């Protein structure tokens, strides 16, 4: 346990004293490999991740820590600049309170602690220079479903931190980022687009989806969040032939209770997807705690237009800018 007695400056790192309930290294994931059976994974709250990285002058794709329900304790090796965003976990440096959503200096040897946040689930901790564990297929993200990327963070881990000059960092330029989604209480409102398999459900199911007060289940993880409420009624039994699913899909197993797919969702699924939460609202879903109230607001689907009488229409030349309907 005693550090090597070398005089040379030690490499910058975070020494993990306690990981809390669940902490993983995350960046923006590994999109583009789904045809190999590899999901995008990456940070569950992309907005919080990007903000935290920007606050310390990192490129947005740098790796940070995704800390579930606080509890993380780390010791700085070298003086580090950190920022926390996402779930508002209280931050302490050697016992002294520090602000979230702002750059914070952690002196060499100081202990940084994250308390359990009063709301939300995941706090992103960015470190200037980025967490530099080895990348797997272009990403440092832990994909808990596929078993790709670094192992979950554990006590005793020493997580290397990059040198800002080599990591593409710029000077931090803001002192504080005000909250952009103040918590006004009431249910989380998620916008969703019907389909692709709304025709697997009884008439009126979309209205029921929008009308039902849902609550977040207790066993949510990076793969998905189960919702409790009045079960949706399927008009067809069984499973679909497997088909690709996206982050935000509301997949409905035979129980009728939807699972909202999050960052580490499987690449394909066999349960029909009744609607898909719009991309910009999935971050909010990833911050839902067990028992939190959820409402869905349905949007009209984007115009994809049904097949016309001649499916080859538009095949010649370039695609028209819009499909007028």
């Amino acid at each position, binding site marked *: 346990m005693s550090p090597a007695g070398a005089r040379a400056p030690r490499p910058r790192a975070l020494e993990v004293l306690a990981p809390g309930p669940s902490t993983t290294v995350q960046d923006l994931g590994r999109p583009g490999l*789904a*045809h190999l*059976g590899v999901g995008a994974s990456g940070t569950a709250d992309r907005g919080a991740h990007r903000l935290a990285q920007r606050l310390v002058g990192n490129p947005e794709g740098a790796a940070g820590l995704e800390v579930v329900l606080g509890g993380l304790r780390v010791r700085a090796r070298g003086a580090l600049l950190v920022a926390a965003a996402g779930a508002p976990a209280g931050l302490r440096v050697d016992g002294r309170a520090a602000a979230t959503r702002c750059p914070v200096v952690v002196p060499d040897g100081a202990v940084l602690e994250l308390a359990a946040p009063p709301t939300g689930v995941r706090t992103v901790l960015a470190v200037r220079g980025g967490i530099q564990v080895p990348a797997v297929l272009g990403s440092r993200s832990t994909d808990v479903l596929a078993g790709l990327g670094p192992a979950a963070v554990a006590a005793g881990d020493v997580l290397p931190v990059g040198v800002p000059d080599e990591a593409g960092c710029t000077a931090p330029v803001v002192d504080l980022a005000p909250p952009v989604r103040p918590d006004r209480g009431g249910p989380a409102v998620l916008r969703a687009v019907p389909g692709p398999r709304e025709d697997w459900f009884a008439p009126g199911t979309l209205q029921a989806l929008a009308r039902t007060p849902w609550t977040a289940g207790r066993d949510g993880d990076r793969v998905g969040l189960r919702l409790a409420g009045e079960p949706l009624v399927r008009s067809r039994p069984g499973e679909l*032939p497997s088909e690709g699913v996206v982050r935000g899909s509301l997949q409905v197993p035979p129980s009728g209770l939807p699972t909202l797919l999050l960052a580490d969702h499987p690449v394909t699924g066999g349960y029909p997807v009744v609607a*898909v939460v719009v991309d910009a609202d999935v971050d909010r879903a990833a911050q839902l705690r067990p028992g939190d109230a959820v409402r869905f607001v349905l949007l009209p689907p*984007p115009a*994809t237009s049904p*097949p016309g009488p001649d499916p080859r229409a538009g095949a010649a030349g370039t695609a028209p800018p819009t499909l007028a309907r």
Partner: protein
Amino acid sequence: MPEPGAPAPGAPVRLRPCGDAALLVEVDPDGEGAAGVLGSVLALHAALRADPPAGLVDLVPAARTVLVRLRPGSDPARAAAHVRAVAARAAGPAAAAPGPAGCGTGEGRAGAEVEVPVVYDGPDLAEAAAALGTDPAGLVARHTGRPWTAAFAGFAPGFAYCVQDAPAAGGTGGAPERAWDVPRRASPRTSVPAGSVGLAGPFSGVYPRRAPGGWQLVGRTEVRLWDVGRDPPALLAPGARVRFVDAGGGAR
């Protein structure tokens, strides 16, 4: 009566909305589910790789769909028009058949035939053979008799759903063989070893790592299906041609 594996030329596509940053392209909108649909999926996947819509992030080919994932903020209507045009071209008879001709734009290994030596001693060999109306030796002969094509991936990194080529037109004059249609195990195993060669429905596949699974296990291979230190890490990307070879002297 179309032969199993026969292409479905001109199969129309149906575009289904999938949130605000994706489209689900259904190649088999009427749900016929014929094995030939996989050839159309492969052809569409290859065509969209070669001529991607603006803002493309990812293509996910599956049993009868191709999911087109777009960068958030892209215009799904514009992508839809592009996909429709590409699909109309890909549905032409020349592009619909599975095989090297339809897969030339896949991953680096596509087009080449990957040999997978198999020891046919799986715990479900006899049961799977019975389901196909043959015996273990007959199953091995069929499994190794013609090449397979990796149609799509899923379930786990590097797991490829492979479908066997249709018999050559005219055949050899023997008794007509039943199409691959092997039921999944009623109760999935909690742990299937890496390298297990399985059958389910019209598909054969090899488990890239230890995982729970419900496929009927007919054999095992030493070949590594997935290796993150390799480029590409998946041995079998969509479009890859696979030949299973009997490495253990027939069924055991």
